[in-house]
């Protein structure tokens, strides 16, 4: 079976202007959203406490709030969690369990009074102090940035600088798009999201590697072709790989998203978005950046040398070996 027929030849680079404009707008929007509204932070990053409750029977949020008494007031957020009909809820408190003091006992006492001692179960308590939250937040952001730069350096080292730059810009795009999608989906940012972002950085660069590998190979093999032509050819030739390698990952992610439970769902969602974005950015971001970089370099060179026609730019790169 073949999804992509051999000999396919789409001039992807022709769409690069639209793609660059579109992606720039999207990324800027995400940045604006990120700095004005900010992401919804989970307890890992914001500090506070989250409690997961499971009830024997159907209960409503106001009922739980009433049962929690003093704990249920103020900034306490109670929301449905898990699958339909599992009667699970998350209670999010601003304060940590230490500040509240004997939180578990207080919860148990309040809930027992209303739902009976066996009518509910405290399944999970996570409490993070504000100092730890701040530290995790900073380290998380740093690690994603470090990983992105590291990917660029690796590709620079294995290929060329411009490929590395293209990869880094594509990765920034993927990370921003994922963050945007998470914000639109009202997901909370916590440690698993950082894990997802790092995985996206590590995985979505794979498609870029595959295309770069082919561009390099074609540049050695075919001398009489423009760089643009070679890039297009390489994207087309590797298109089925790009789609299938990401496709198999998407398959398992769909399974995780649908069946993996409430803790894993945001993680799977982030990866799904990031991986889709990875395919797009490889084709429409990384490759044009390589092209733009090249054209910029030639332009600078041509000014110095007294003018070379643009159309004469050839892929005349001597192979590294």
């Amino acid at each position: 079976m073949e999804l992509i027929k051999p000999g396919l030849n789409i001039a992807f680079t022709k769409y690069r202007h639209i793609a660059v404009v579109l992606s720039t707008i999207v990324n800027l929007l995400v940045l604006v959203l990120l700095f004005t509204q900010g992401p919804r932070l989970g307890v890992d990053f914001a500090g506070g406490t989250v409690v997961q409750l499971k009830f024997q029977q159907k209960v409503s949020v106001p009922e739980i709030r009433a049962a929690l008494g003093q704990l249920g007031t103020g900034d306490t957020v109670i929301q449905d969690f898990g699958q339909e009909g599992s009667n699970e809820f998350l209670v999010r408190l601003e304060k940590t369990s230490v500040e509240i003091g004997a939180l578990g006992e207080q919860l148990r006492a309040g809930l027992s009074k209303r739902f009976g001692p066996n009518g509910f179960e405290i399944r999970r308590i996570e409490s993070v102090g504000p100092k730890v939250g701040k530290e995790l937040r900073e380290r998380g952001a740093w690690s994603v940035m470090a990983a992105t730069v590291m990917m660029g350096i690796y590709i620079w080292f294995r290929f060329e600088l411009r490929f590395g730059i293209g990869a880094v810009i594509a990765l920034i795009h993927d990370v921003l798009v994922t963050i945007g999608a998470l914000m639109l989906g009202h997901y909370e940012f916590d440690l698993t999201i950082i894990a997802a972002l790092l995985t996206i950085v590590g995985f979505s660069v794979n498609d870029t590697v595959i295309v770069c590998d082919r561009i390099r190979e074609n540049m050695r093999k075919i001398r009489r072709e423009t760089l643009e032509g070679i890039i297009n050819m390489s994207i087309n030739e590797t298109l089925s790989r790009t789609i299938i390698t990401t496709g198999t990952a998407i398959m398992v992610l769909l399974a995780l998203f649908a069946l993996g439970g409430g803790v894993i769902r945001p993680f799977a969602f982030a990866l799904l978005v990031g991986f889709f974005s990875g395919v797009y950015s490889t084709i429409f971001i990384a490759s044009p950046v390589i092209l733009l970089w090249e054209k910029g370099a030639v332009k600078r060179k041509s000014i110095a040398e007294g003018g070379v026609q643009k159309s004469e730019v050839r892929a005349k790169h001597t192979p590294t070996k």
Partner: protein
Amino acid sequence: MRRSVAIRLGLFIVATLVSLVYLAPTFVHDLPPWWSSFLPTDRIHLGLDLQGGSHLLLEVKVEKAIENNVERIKADLTNVLRDRGISGVSVERVQGTQIQLKVPAASVERVRGLLKSDFANLTVVNTQASGGTTEFFLTLSKEEIRSLRDYAVDQSLETIRNRIDQFGVSEPVIQREGQQEILIQLPGIQDPERAKEIIGKTALLEFKLVDDTVNVEEALRNGPPPGRQILYGYAGKGEGGVGGDKTPYVVESRTLMTGEYITDARVRPSSQLQGPYVELILNSTGARLFEQITAANVKRRLAIVLDNRVYSAPVIQERIGGGRASITGSFDIKEARDLAIVLRAGALPAPVEIIEERSVGPSLGSDSIRQGIISFVVGISLVIVFMIIYYRGAGVLADVALVFHILFLLAILAAFKAVLTLPGIAGIVLIAGMAVDANVLINERIREELRAGRAPRSAVEAGYQHALPAIIDTNVTTFLSGLILFQFGTGPIKGFAVTLCIGILTTVITAVYMTRIYYDYRMATRKLTRISI
């Protein structure tokens, strides 16, 4: 060629057998008795999020320990000055950890000499002379402070380990993290609240005299007179006076004795007269000291203060010898038992604060495992079916490699005692979707070579050869991000990073080298004229 195939095949068979041996304890419930005598018996370790339990991160308030130390030095200094007959010197603790001395001009030289000879661990940071008195500002040396910090954290760790051992938790993890933090993992505990109570209590036991000459009401209104302080006793349950009545006591600030002389603490059952109480047994020094204290203060009230809370303040009827004391108060048998534990294990050198807590109940853990297994099975089935439909024979080959990859991955997790967490399971599922990527790259390349008119044999060879650099590069990048994640992550996230990194190694081995054995075998035995791809 044939020999090379045989050797590689042999290696894989050995690797498979070793893997099965490592996984047997996890998947086979009753292994024969001879197994444990020379084969591994460790099951795959489950993280706290899967088996249930508590993860606590404590911060040791080392500044407090330093302050306490300075306070002790201040008391020493005061005593020595009095003993040497140097009068008119005021000794105060200022700015947390500095000692300020105000010395009349006549005594400056003597004080200087005293500081040099008896208090060499103090450095003079500043001296100011004004109007007949000289002010000295003293502080502990940097090394002294560093060693105090280290001591505070290490001693806290030791004390907490003692308490947890007595509390009875199997396989707890208690280790120092960073500068002044302690990580505690308590697998499978049912009552995290109680564990936190026991771990977090400073348990500083002090005996102080109650000053009945001071009017309590007045002291509450105007503040206690110098050398006195107000402490509260709580009736009924609850720390910090939740739902209980507070009783104020005016006590002398001076601590006559602390809990450091306790050799044992036992719960005594309740009698008709009183509830359960904790009996303290003191060592010989403590016994002597206690005897002196009680002898000198007959008919006065002695407050028994634990963590600045007055438990009881009985009147000393007579001199108490024999090194036994008791703490009574209104607590039930469980509280009495916990109190005995913390008193036996000793006081923490500094207060600790829980800055992170993650507790998971056992039922959530088993739910997570079930969901993890279901998504694993569904996800992997999708991939397996897809590969067969898309690549037929070569797809089957990739699927076989995938199965072996999972086998090796799990075996390595078991062999290296790695911890499997919920994100770790997600990692295994995700890696399964990535594992076939190498085969996709190889198969696509073989197809290309076949289309270019190559014979199957050379197409396979060219396919593996040309696909390899990209396979290595893609896996290196993912591995690198896994390493960064490992550096950054805590607990469950680390579990994900571990499975990611190990999984990448095993996929390269199975997807590239293992599948190659099959083709080489076919090429070696007969001509490879047709391949299903």
